[in-house]
């Protein structure tokens, strides 16, 4: 003599349909809470994924980078640069580095071929640059040891530079002039493009496209022929694994501190540690938003409880009639509980759909990658059902406890 779950659902749907506006108002808090959770989680997921991709395509998590420490007070003396001699010393001290690329960046100037010119950043590098950046050569070859030891006047162009200067012509073996010097083009680099467009460094533009606008010269050539005063301010190393990179970071940091008499002129970072830091930051960010969403769900739940209590009061007579014709206490409790849970679950579904709509807008407008997973949808749905159960039980139990005689007397 029990009424089945299907029957309860049927009753619940009828109840909701008879009180559409009230049900909609009841559930607004849940809709907003679920929507918030969806949007925040999807954006954070997307950002994490984008960062991971950006890092892995720029040398991965085994990379160690040495850069000037802009937090250091340079008025105390010292200059964040390394000489070629110091670079060679570091190389000898970290033989385990699988790639080693010191780098100088030259001021932007126009690179010319005949009448056409293109302003691009130019770098002096080692052959290992390709390995460190996990870059491929598209045409010709990259700078090699021979170019370094002979201080050759050769240049390797990024794909955009080659296109701008030579359009469809073959640049190999041709000469470009830059800063009053002539360089022979020996190679063109493959195009860098981040799959699954995401923000990365810049919103709206592909996260790796800036690399295609660079040109590269042998480091030795830059220092000996272009500007002997130029010092090396950036060094990239590759370790065998992310774990080894952490050790190597410490080692390189110590070496450089010793070279610079204990002055922290440089920052040494491992990609793995940067990644950990970013993860931690995004965790904090996520937690705060989840907390806000949970508060909104709780407030939504309290609103639901209130409205359901009012609804039980208003439907006292109906409850009395149901009891008189044979409903057990349990049937009444289930009827109201199922109704509450149905409302919150529907609210959850609407929240998920709204969340998707917003993600679509945000993703499209900001060119921000968003990652909404099936797990998130289930979580959102379960959370809204949970809120329904939690805040629906009290009004439902109260309905089940009504004395039928009193209930039937109620006007």
């Amino acid at each position: 003599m029990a009424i089945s779950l299907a029957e309860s659902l049927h009753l619940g749907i009828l109840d909701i349909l008879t009180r559409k506006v009230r049900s909609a108002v009841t559930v607004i808090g849940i809709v907003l809470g679920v929507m918030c959770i969806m949007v925040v989680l999807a954006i954070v997921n997307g950002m994490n994924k984008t960062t991971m991709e950006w890092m892995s395509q720029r040398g991965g998590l085994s990379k160690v980078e040495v850069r000037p420490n802009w937090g250091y007070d340079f008025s105390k003396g010292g200059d964040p640069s390394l000489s070629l001699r110091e670079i060679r010393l570091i190389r000898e001290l970290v033989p385990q580095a699988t790639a080693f690329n010191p780098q100088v960046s030259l001021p932007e100037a126009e690179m010319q071929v005949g009448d056409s010119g293109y302003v691009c950043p130019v770098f002096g590098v080692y052959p290992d640059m390709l390995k460190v950046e996990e870059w491929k050569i598209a045409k010709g070859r990259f700078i090699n040891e021979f170019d370094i030891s002979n201080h050759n006047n050769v240049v390797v162009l990024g794909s955009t530079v080659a296109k701008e200067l030579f359009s469809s012509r073959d640049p190999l073996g041709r000469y470009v002039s830059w800063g009053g010097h002539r360089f022979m083009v020996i190679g063109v680099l493959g195009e860098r493009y981040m799959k699954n467009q995401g923000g990365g460094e810049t919103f709206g533009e592909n996260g790796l496209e800036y690399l295609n606008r660079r040109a590269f010269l042998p480091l030795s050539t830059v220092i000996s022929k272009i500007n002997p005063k130029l010092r090396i301010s950036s060094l990239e190393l590759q370790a065998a694994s992310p774990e080894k990179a952490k050790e190597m970071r410490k080692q390189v940091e110590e070496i450089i501190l010793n070279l610079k008499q204990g002055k922290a002129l440089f920052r040494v970072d491992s990609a793995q540690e940067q990644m950990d830091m970013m993860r931690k930051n995004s965790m904090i960010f996520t937690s705060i938003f989840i907390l806000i969403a949970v508060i909104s769900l709780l407030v939504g739940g309290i609103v639901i409880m209130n409205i359901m209590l009012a609804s039980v009061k208003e439907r006292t007579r109906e409850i009395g009639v149901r009891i008189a014709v044979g409903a057990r206490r349990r049937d009444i409790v289930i009827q109201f509980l199922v109704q509450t849970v149905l409302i919150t679950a529907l609210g959850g579904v609407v929240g998920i759909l709204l969340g998707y709509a917003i993600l679509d807008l945000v993703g499209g407008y900001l060119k921000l990658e968003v990652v909404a997973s099936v797990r998130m949808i289930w979580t959102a749905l379960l959370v809204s059902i949970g809120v329904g159960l939690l805040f629906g039980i009290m009004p439902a139990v109260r309905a089940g406890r009504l004395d039928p005689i009193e209930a039937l007397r109620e006007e």
Partner: protein
Amino acid sequence: MAEIIATKNLIKDYNLGKVKVRALNGVDLTIEAGEFVAIMGPSGSGKSTLMHIIGCLDSPTSGEYHLDGVLVSQMAKDDLASIRNSKIGFVFQSFNLLPHLNILKNVELPLMYAGESLRERSRKAREILASVGLSDRLRHKPSELSGGQRQRVAIARAIVNNPAILLADEPTGNLDSQAGGDILEIFTRLHSQGNTVIIVTHDKAVAQRAGRIIRIMDGRIEDGHLTG
């Protein structure tokens, strides 16, 4: 004839704060299957309390109550729900139909709690509604019907599960004399078809229809005599 209702020394006390009120003070009552009985008494006489106990909406403080051969006076609430569902059909003064359900759904209600299939519910409810002349109003809401029609729906709901007794509380109290007369006709017809009908009323004209009038006063039954 078989006894459908048999009570022995029914006592019902209410605690109103510190004061104890005795609403029923030893009621012995027997009703045979197929009888048409009216229970009369002024307000405060214990008439409503007796009706609630007979209808299994309430339990006596002490005493025994056998309904259709089953001792129900000490039953748990959920078991009483099942008894109400299968053995008792209620008709109230104010109809007590569910306003947002159409009349077909209203009549199906006891069958739902009895666990009948959707199809069986609909079949039985249609059949009963036809017997009270409301076949053409199945999809109407109670608010779209006249008082007399509403009470006929309530009667249909009360008898749809084929109960042992039909228990009506002032069924004509909210109706004009014409509609009230029609409703009493239905009760008379149901009685003639073998149903046990109990009407609680203070209206003599209504009580005259019954085969027996039970008068209650100060929580006791005064006398029970046939009206002829």
